[in-house]
Every structure is written in C-alpha cells, then in structure tokens.
C-alpha cells in the first residue's frame, strides 16, 4: 500500500473524552462561522485527506508553498489550505469553528499572518485576473490568516453519505480487495464514452479503479452532484467488472488552478491509497489560463510525489476505426467526433440525447429523466 503523503495518515478527530471537554469550553472561545467549502477542508484535514496537514497553514508553510510549491519541511504541496480570519482572532488562543451554527472543530491558533492577495493569486493561479474563478475566491478573503492544528468535534454533514469514504476506509477497502495498485479518476461530469475508454485503458495496468467524483461548490452550468453519481452508478452496473471498481466521493470546492490543482488532486488520492491518477487534457483548468498539457508537465517537478500520473492527451470517436481513439493510436484525422463535456451539456440544454458513440444509452436516459440537471 502506498504511504500517505508525508509518511503518516493524519487523524485529528477528537476522542470522546477530548470532545466532551472541548464542547464544554467552546462557548467561551472566539467563534468563527465557516462556509461549506471551509467545512469540507476541516473535514479533509481531520480525516487525513490532506495528510500531512494537521491544521490550516502557518505563515511559514504559506510562504514556502507560494515560493516553491513545497511545505516548509520540503513535502510537495501546491494549493494553500488557509483560514482567513478577522482582526479579533489572536495568536495563542483556541477558537471554535462553526458550520451552520454547530461547533465543528477547535483550532489552536499558533500564528496569525498576512499575505498580499495579488501575489497569492499570481503564485497559485499564474494570474490575478478577477475573471479567474480561483482568483475571485481569493479576492473574497481578508488576507489575514490563522495557522494551527485543528481538532474535529463534529463531522461535516456530508452530502450523499452512502458514497463518502475516508482515507482510512478506502485504504482498508483496497487492502481487503487485494489491490496493490489503484488508479484514481476525478470527475465533475457524467461519464461519456471517452471517459470510460480512459478509465478502462488505465485499469488495464492496475488492480483497481477509484471513480472519485468531486462533491462541492461548482460553477453555474456544471452538472448537479446527484446526476453525476446516478450516471456513474448506471455505467458501473452495466459496463464495469464490479470487483475492480469503487465509486466514492471526494469533498472539495474546485479552485480551477490547472496544473497546481492537479498536484493537489494527486496528493489527496495518494492519501486515499491510490498509486496512480488519471490526468487528462487541461485537468482542473478553466478558460485559456493554462496550456492543455501543463497539468502533465508539472508532475516532472516532483520526483518525490510517489503517486504517478497516467496522462492522456486527447480522445475522440473515430467512425472509421469504429471505436474511441487517441492521437497516438489512430491514423485518421477526419470525421473524428470529439468527446466533450461542453458538447454533452449543449445537447442536454436543447433537450436532445447524446448519440451512442458519445454516451452509453443507460447513462443518457438517467440525464433525460431528471428535471434539474445543472447547477444554477
């Protein structure tokens, strides 16, 4: 089994006794309300998805990640995990982090630091253009951050709990299945035949496949989380060997940070116990901010990442081959039908169903049967 990132799977869940004591004193602590995206981050820290992080970034880790894509101790890390706080929060105190009014975690504030948000955005996203959705999120921050270890008191009320697995659970599951190598596929779309082709191509070389849809805040026009899960359930039921596939969710809000976010996605899957991750064209990208293969190239800068990428350049349906193809295996460059989430969305918007070559009919029928398909 692959080691967790940094060598140790983090568990920052309070023991029963600790929880009781902290809840008893929580009302006397400074209280901070967090939105669902931050609550997901707290859950991810506490359950080890973000191992080796035990809390939100200190000033040292933030500067180190912005400067050289590594934590202070040289562990690879690319997207800061920060808690922006008001001036009332002071170093040295314990604060309680609440979500929907409920105490979720206690954080021991080890340091409070500031960062220039323009520099932050340029370092992480390569731009400070406010049109970039990641930059827009950074611009909403205060620029004043608190770092320190957290202790989880109450788990996040996760959507679709029947599909939610913590790293300790996926690791035991993979071991019980006898999988030594597992490839992860991240998705935020219902599967088209191109996705299936890529997943099965990767699964040819590993013992198992983790289909890992991202559950969290998305852009307007993206598919609803529930639709993504239902369509994948249907695809796995009809077209996958069940002893080779696990479908479970991951809680994250997308940053659309392209190559740097690809590294974070790989780290999270490594913590889940995956040895490989599929990285496609413009992974986690948006607009034209990143080159189509930047997310492939960046992996070369991390010889110590341990999880390995399966990189795919492009894939399409070739009528002459009569199958999904990629540019390395098909000599025909005419009449190729590109698999594209955008095209699928456009068809669904027009009330049409994608063709068999584009999407399995069982999957298309799930989409057709739903009323609210897209995020408002």
């Amino acid at each position: 089994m692959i080691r967790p990132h940094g060598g140790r799977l983090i568990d920052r869940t309070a023991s029963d006794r600790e929880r009781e004591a902290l809840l008893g004193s929580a009302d006397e602590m400074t209280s901070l309300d967090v939105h669902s995206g931050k609550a997901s981050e707290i859950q991810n820290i506490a359950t080890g998805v973000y191992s080796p992080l035990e809390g939100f970034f200190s000033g040292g880790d933030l500067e180190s990640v912005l400067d050289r894509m590594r934590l202070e101790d040289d562990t690879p890390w690319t997207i800061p995990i920060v808690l922006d706080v008001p001036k009332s929060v002071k170093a040295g105190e314990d604060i309680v982090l609440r979500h929907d009014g409920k105490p979720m975690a206690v954080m021991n504030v080890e340091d409070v630091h500031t960062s220039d948000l323009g520099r932050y955005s340029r370092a992480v996203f390569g731009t400070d253009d406010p049109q970039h959705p990641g930059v827009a999120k950074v611009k909403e921050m205060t620029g004043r951050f608190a770092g320190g270890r957290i202790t989880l008191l109450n788990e996040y009320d996760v959507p679709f709990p029947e599909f939610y697995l913590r790293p300790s659970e996926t690791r035991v599951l993979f071991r019980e299945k006898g999988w030594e190598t597992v490839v992860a596929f991240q998705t935020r779309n219902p599967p088209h035949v191109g996705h299936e082709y890529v997943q099965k191509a990767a699964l040819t070389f590993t013992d198992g496949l983790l289909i890992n849809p991202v559950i969290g805040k998305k852009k307007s026009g993206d598919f609803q989380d529930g639709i993504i899960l239902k369509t994948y359930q249907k695809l796995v039921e009809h077209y996958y060997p069940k002893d080779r596939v696990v479908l479970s969710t991951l809680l994250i809000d997308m940053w659309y940070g392209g190559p740097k976010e690809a590294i974070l996605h790989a780290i999270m899957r490594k913590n889940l116990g995956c040895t490989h991750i599929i990285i496609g064209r413009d992974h986690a990208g948006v607009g034209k901010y990143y080159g189509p293969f930047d997310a492939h190239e960046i992996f070369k800068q991390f010889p110590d990442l341990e999880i390995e990428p399966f990189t795919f350049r492009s894939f399409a349906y070739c009528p002459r081959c009569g199958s999904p193809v990629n540019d390395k295996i098909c000599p025909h460059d005419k009449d190729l039908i590109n698999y594209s989430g955008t095209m699928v969305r456009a068809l669904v918007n027009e009330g049409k169903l994608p063709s068999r070559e584009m999407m399995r009919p069982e999957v298309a029928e799930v989409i057709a049967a739903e009323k609210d398909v897209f995020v408002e």
Partner: protein
Amino acid sequence: MTEEEKKYTTISIPTPLANKVKERIKGTGFSSVSAYTTYVLRQIISTDEPKEEAFSKEDEERIKERLRSLGYLD
C-alpha cells in the same frame, strides 16, 4: 540567521562529479547542478522511507463494518 532559518545549505561533491552533472544537464530543464542534485536526492529519499499502516484492530473492525453496511465489502 541560524542554521534552522536558512532555506538552503551547501554540500560538497567531488569536482569531477560536478563536471559530469554539468554536462548531463545541458539542454534539459535543470538550471544548475544544485537543481539536479536536489531532484535526485528527493527521488532517492522518497523511495527509502518506510511504509507504515497503523490501524488498531478495533479501528479496522469499525471500518470494515461501515464498508459492509454501505455495500462496499461483502
């Protein structure tokens, strides 16, 4: 500045080896002997580190029970 606060340190390697590295990195993405050496050392260190899996028996049984209840394990 203390040793602890320094971001980089200096190590010595034989000059002929450094010259070979200089030749090796020509035309690659490595900008210096230091960058190449850092890359190689990170690769070696990561593969040398011990693999550990630490779940107590109780934790493991609890985990398996949840996996069974969700249908992930028989």
